[in-house]
């Protein structure tokens, strides 16, 4: 019966409060960064610089929180830093019509270097992590109390944000215009919609989200700053947008699935189930690939879900 025992162990692990809490912490920065990028890409812009904006958000977020003693100010600094870096990207790609892939990659390199410089003076310092919600009675409820009513504020913000993005994209006129621009910027322009202005706002919004996601790492996840502490999470966020086929609901599923499977890959190791640890560490990527294949199969003949103008340079009236 070792197989059954193993399954019971896995089951107990997955449905333990501490496992779920760890998964939520690991998934939140991915969801925040990917939410912003989803908006950017729906407007037809491909910004590969998430990793750079995130690490800038981490450095400036930590600096702000350390100097002011306030997590809120830290988070705002992170948001501003991400948005400021994305403004550079906007000037290059929207203003000067530079290739978006090249500009995005350059943005990551710039962000990594600049954040190291800004953060250098703060390495070795630590701050008090952001407090978790504590409601009378509700937070003390068994099982769901801690999970639903005992998270840190960033978690609630990330959920509120993706709901707001969904409402904006599918329930407002401006959201419709943004999607139209992403699908065919020439037609949208001909109809008189301000393509570049909307794209600029989308890019800034994406930068702000990436900055907030980066700030989450030193403000809540591991309350210290170290250069390069984003460790590739920006790239995962980028992949999640594709995984979600540019849809907000699927993005939530993707971010939490990725978070859950990667924590599972760590937590299962000490149980000695005889699965090689390399396979465990591969699991989140493997799961992503499998789900992607399934999604693209069930989509049938509808064609690619990507916004049709994604990554294309637009110069009005040329």
């Amino acid at each position, binding site marked *: 019966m070792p197989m059954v025992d193993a399954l019971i162990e896995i089951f107990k692990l997955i449905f333990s409060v501490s496992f779920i809490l760890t998964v939520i912490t690991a998934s939140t920065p991915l969801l925040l960064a990917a939410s912003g990028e989803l908006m950017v890409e729906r407007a037809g812009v491909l910004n590969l610089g998430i990793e750079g904006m995130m690490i800038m958000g981490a450095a400036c977020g930590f600096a702000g929180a350390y100097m002011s003693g306030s997590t809120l100010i830290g988070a705002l600094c992170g948001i501003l830093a991400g948005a400021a870096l994305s403004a550079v990207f906007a000037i290059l790609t929207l203003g000067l019509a530079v290739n978006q892939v090249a500009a995005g990659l350059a943005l990551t390199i710039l962000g990594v270097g600049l954040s190291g410089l800004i953060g250098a003076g703060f390495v070795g310092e630590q701050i008090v992590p952001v407090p978790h919600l504590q409601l009378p009675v509700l937070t003390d409820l068994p099982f769901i109390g801690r999970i639903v009513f005992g998270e840190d504020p960033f978690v609630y913000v990330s959920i509120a944000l993706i709901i707001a993005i969904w409402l904006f994209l599918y329930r407002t006129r401006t959201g419709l215009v943004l999607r139209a621009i992403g699908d065919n910027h020439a037609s949208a322009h001909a109809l008189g919609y301000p393509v570049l202005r909307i794209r600029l706002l989308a890019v800034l919004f994406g930068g702000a989200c990436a900055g907030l996601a980066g700030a989450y790492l030193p403000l809540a*996840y591991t309350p210290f700053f170290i250069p390069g502490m984003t460790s590739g999470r920006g790239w995962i966020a980028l992949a999640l947008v594709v995984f979600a086929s540019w849809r907000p609901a699927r993005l939530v599923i993707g971010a939490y699935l990725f978070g859950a499977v990667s924590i599972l890959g760590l937590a299962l190791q000490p149980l000695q189930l005889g699965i090689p640890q390399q396979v465990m560490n591969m699991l989140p990527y493997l799961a992503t690939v499998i789900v992607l294949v399934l999604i693209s199969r069930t989509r049938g003949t509808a064609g690619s879900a990507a916004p049709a103008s994604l990554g294309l340079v637009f110069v009005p009236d040329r």
Partner: protein
Amino acid sequence: MKKWNVVAVAALLALAAATFGGAYAADKLKVGFVYVGPIGDLGYTYQHELGRQALQKALNDKVETTFLENVPEGADAERAIEQLARAGNKLIFTTSFGFMDATLKVANKYPNVFFEHATGFKRAKNLATYAARFYEGRYIQGQIAGKMTKSGVIGYIVSFPIPEVISGINATMLGAQSVNPNVKFKIIWVNSWFDPGKEADAAKALIDQGADILTQHTDSPAAMQIAEQRGIRAFGQSSDMIKFGPHAQLTADTDYWGNYYIGRAKLVLEGKWKSDDTWDGLDKGMVVMAPYTNMPDDVKEMAMKTEAAIKSGSLHPFKCPITDQDGKTVECKGGSRLDNGQILSMNWYVKGIDDKVPGK
């Protein structure tokens, strides 16, 4: 970004020196360092950087040091090392295991430059190797953990299954077993030297599964912070992490490279450098234990006694007989203990470790 700046500056300096007669450059010995991580990692690379600073300070009028940080292991490393050689550095330290083949290649190309590679095993006429006996500190940590644990479960966060890491796990277990035969290890491989978030996740998972002492062979202080938050004890890695766990850190096995770097630079200046294989530990001060804190006096006394015994040579962490995981007695090539080669190529677990060496 920063590294290329350094390269560019170094190259410009070399060019300037060549153009204007080279009087300045000829006076000072140029020493280059290649780091795998950021100097602000508070761990492994930071300790090498402290060593470089000690060298610069000690021989300030005789040497000129530069470093390249965040150099990825692989093809990029070869380019970075070669840049340093071309920029006129006569002594180059490459500080990560993964730089081994790249260093050897560049060393063959530049026979008049002296190279030193940390933690590797390939040498040449102008390529020396050096490493610290990290496992000595880990044996002491194992003893402390064995005494301090109440649950009998010690959590171990590890990066990659290279011999240095495996011998660390074994030394910790042997130390723990010497005072507590029933101790159990729970091991999580995070497949990264440096991912604070993942290290924190692994720490949480280990504590949830009953570990009340954490030890790590990854480079960030994330696990120490989690231990502090959850009210358990932990060991620092590479650097003293007491600031991140004032109530959690028991000790840390830190590396101190300053004396070695100063000694090697002096040999070059005196024209006496030759390719050696240096492997020093507590006795030569290459491994230094951080202060023993957050433990009762008797445990502290035991730790200090063990440290003294290892220093004097009366105790060796890998003293025989040693039984491996499958119950077989390990051959003792070093007489009463395992020899250096056996420790440097260790890819098996000692008895009592409930894990499989990855890839075996």
